[in-house]
């Protein structure tokens, strides 16, 4: 998918003005934020668990894998091959597209059903399949809605279409399905299910993501709520799993730890409606499962992060908690971020995977409030990573010269106490002059953006430094 991240600011403005989006964002926030808090609460009170210790354990599992990624991938591959699967490694999006198209050709595939795969978004796979004469059908309800809406990109990694209202979806269904317009949600889901069922039965190949792949058994774990994942991975003859190389976990035991964290953090569920653990191709005597199983394990910039200051980002289990809790995401939604992943994790990943120079706004579009860091189930220090990206922008001379000059001048002055005292005194007088006796300044010449949305309270009086010096003098005189 081509990144639009350079247009963050302009898009953010549009999103703030979109009244319908704002209502949906508010509902989603309440649902996800309260949902997580309640789920964590239940884990502690009902199960006697320690969620903070669980987060430590989750982070430790992910760290262990990432520091020996090649080893764990090797053992995963060995196991997967033993169960009849084939394992491919894709360097980038182009590799993914070529591999999937080649697999489709090899097996004479005309139609592909897909369950959610963020990697297929990274690779813009649907367009490539269509170009190769293969029809891709998204079967996750949210992804399906996005697909029939002229392939609009998802706006949330868990709930791709949550920015749309029920009415918008009703119109879309009526137009696409050519059936009478329905507005009752169960009716609409039933209609979607009927349409999708035909696709499930006629597809030759299923493509899924993989929340985790397990080295111990060569399996892929899928965490879903709609059950479409099961159809995609068991009905068609061919199943292709596309996921990131960092998604490997050593054992089933480790998987259970991460599964305790993922739904609680993301959707606020104790467990998702479906957790599927799929191992190998269909064997003699088994009634379900594909005849051919492929794993496409994708690098696309991931391996390069190992050993770097951004390595902790590879722990990410794509739960969505960081965006759900982010005040910026809550205000502008996912599309403003311009690529596959939104919110704090998206700001980091977009910068790292599509190039720091192609996402200059994103690391700055954060108040560094660290609400993301305290909810991240694998303790990724997102604000530190965002700050690290800001540092890289400075080191690579990617910041505007005016900003650099201002920062350098300020920092230099701040190192000269006498000069600084003078400058702060002048600034103080200037602000008081602007306020002109009022308690506030309505328009500022310096940093005028401040007064775009708020007043600036006027300084209370002279600077502390001046007043303190006066007081000290007075004390001396009195003594």
């Amino acid at each position: 998918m081509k990144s639009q991240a350079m247009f963050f600011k302009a898009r953010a403005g549009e999103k703030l003005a979109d009244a319908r989006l704002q209502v949906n964002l508010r509902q989603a926030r309440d649902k996800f934020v309260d949902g997580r808090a309640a789920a964590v609460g239940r884990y502690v009170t009902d199960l006697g668990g320690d969620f903070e210790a669980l987060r430590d354990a989750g982070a430790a599992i992910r760290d262990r894998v990432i520091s020996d990624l090649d080893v764990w991938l090797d053992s995963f591959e060995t196991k997967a091959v033993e169960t009849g699967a084939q394992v491919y490694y894709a360097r980038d999006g182009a590799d993914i597209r070529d591999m999937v198209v080649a697999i489709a050709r090899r097996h004479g595939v005309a139609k592909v059903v897909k369950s959610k795969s963020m990697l297929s978004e990274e690779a813009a796979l649907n367009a490539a399949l269509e170009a190769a004469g293969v029809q891709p059908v998204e079967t996750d309800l949210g992804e399906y809605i996005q697909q029939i809406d002229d392939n609009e990109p998802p706006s949330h990694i868990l709930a791709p279409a949550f920015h749309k209202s029920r009415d918008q979806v009703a119109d879309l269904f009526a137009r696409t399905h050519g059936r009478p317009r329905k507005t009752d949600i169960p009716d609409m889901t039933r209609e979607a299910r009927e349409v999708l069922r035909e696709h499930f039965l006629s597809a030759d190949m299923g493509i899924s993501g993989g929340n985790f792949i397990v080295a111990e058994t060569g399996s892929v774990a899928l965490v879903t709520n709609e059950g479409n994942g099961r159809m995609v991975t068991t009905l068609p003859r061919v199943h292709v799993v596309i996921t990131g190389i960092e998604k490997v976990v050593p054992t089933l035991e480790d998987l259970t730890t991460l599964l305790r964290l993922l739904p609680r953090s993301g959707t606020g569920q104790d467990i998702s409606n479906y957790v599927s653990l799929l191992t190998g191709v269909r064997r003699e005597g088994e009634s379900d499962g594909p005849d051919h199983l492929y794993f496409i394990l994708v690098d696309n910039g991931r391996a390069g992060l190992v050993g770097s200051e951004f390595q902790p980002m590879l722990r990410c289990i794509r739960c969505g908690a960081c965006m759900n809790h982010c005040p910026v995401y809550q205000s502008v939604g996912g599309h403003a971020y311009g690529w596959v992943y939104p919110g704090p994790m998206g700001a980091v990943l977009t910068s790292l995977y599509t190039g720091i120079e192609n996402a200059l706004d994103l690391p700055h579009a954060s108040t560094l409030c660290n609400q993301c860091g305290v909810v991240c189930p694998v303790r990724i220090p997102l604000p530190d990573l965002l700050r690290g990206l800001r540092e890289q922008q400075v080191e690579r001379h990617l910041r505007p010269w005016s900003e650099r000059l201002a920062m350098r001048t300020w920092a230099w002055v701040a190192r000269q106490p006498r000069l600084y005292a003078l400058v702060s005194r002048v600034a103080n007088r200037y602000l008081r002059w602007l306020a002109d006796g009022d308690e506030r300044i309505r328009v500022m010449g310096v940093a005028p953006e401040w007064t775009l949305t708020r007043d600036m309270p006027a300084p209370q009086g002279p600077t502390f430094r001046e007043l303190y010096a006066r007081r000290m003098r007075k004390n001396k005189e009195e003594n």
Partner: protein
Amino acid sequence: MRVGLLVTCLVDLMRPGIGFAALRLLESAGCEVVVPNGQTCCGQPAFNAGDRKAARALAEKLLGEFEACEYLVAPSGSCAGMIRTHYPGLFADDERMRGRVQALSSRSYELTDFLVTVLGVSEVPGDFRGSVTYHDSCSGLRELGVKTQPRSLLARMPGVELREMEECEACCGFGGMFSVKFSEISGAISARKCANIQATGADAVVLGDLGCMLNIEGRLRRLGDERTRVLHVAEVLAGEDA
């Protein structure tokens, strides 16, 4: 006990009364307070702008000014957070400096945290009367664990009625340069904060960081609220004639 007061650059420029309030609180708790004369800024703006070099230079400067004090205290969660949680990392490659910095970091406190945790203060001079709601500033809360300290001090004041707001731990939308780089997003975030403040009907919103204060007060006034006062916790605790 010799305590170095880090006034902070914003208090110096905008609201000196907070500095004097902090001074009064520390002195009335029995501290000998020094206000190092050459102090300017802790370097946080540079640090958050990605200018590590400048941040480090300012950290070294501050270290020289406060090293001799038993404690460093600041009426700001974000400046104290900068010193306590981020300074050591700035000197990751310089073992000698890191030792010195760590020694100061571990003695650096946000004001209410210092009063409660280190001094065990149980009486404050302030005589504020009215209802207040407390906004937890991000750095104080999430970097330093400042949560119960200011509330326990406010609870000592018979005239103060604390009314908790919804989402008191949510960011106010300030974020330093964020507030000017993304003024509209910042404005949307603070509008929600303001609504939560107003919903309590409290006479004042009380908080511990000047950045958030300027943002919240500026936004409240822009939205037409002339009633709700915006006060630093030090001002409330120390009383008017600080």
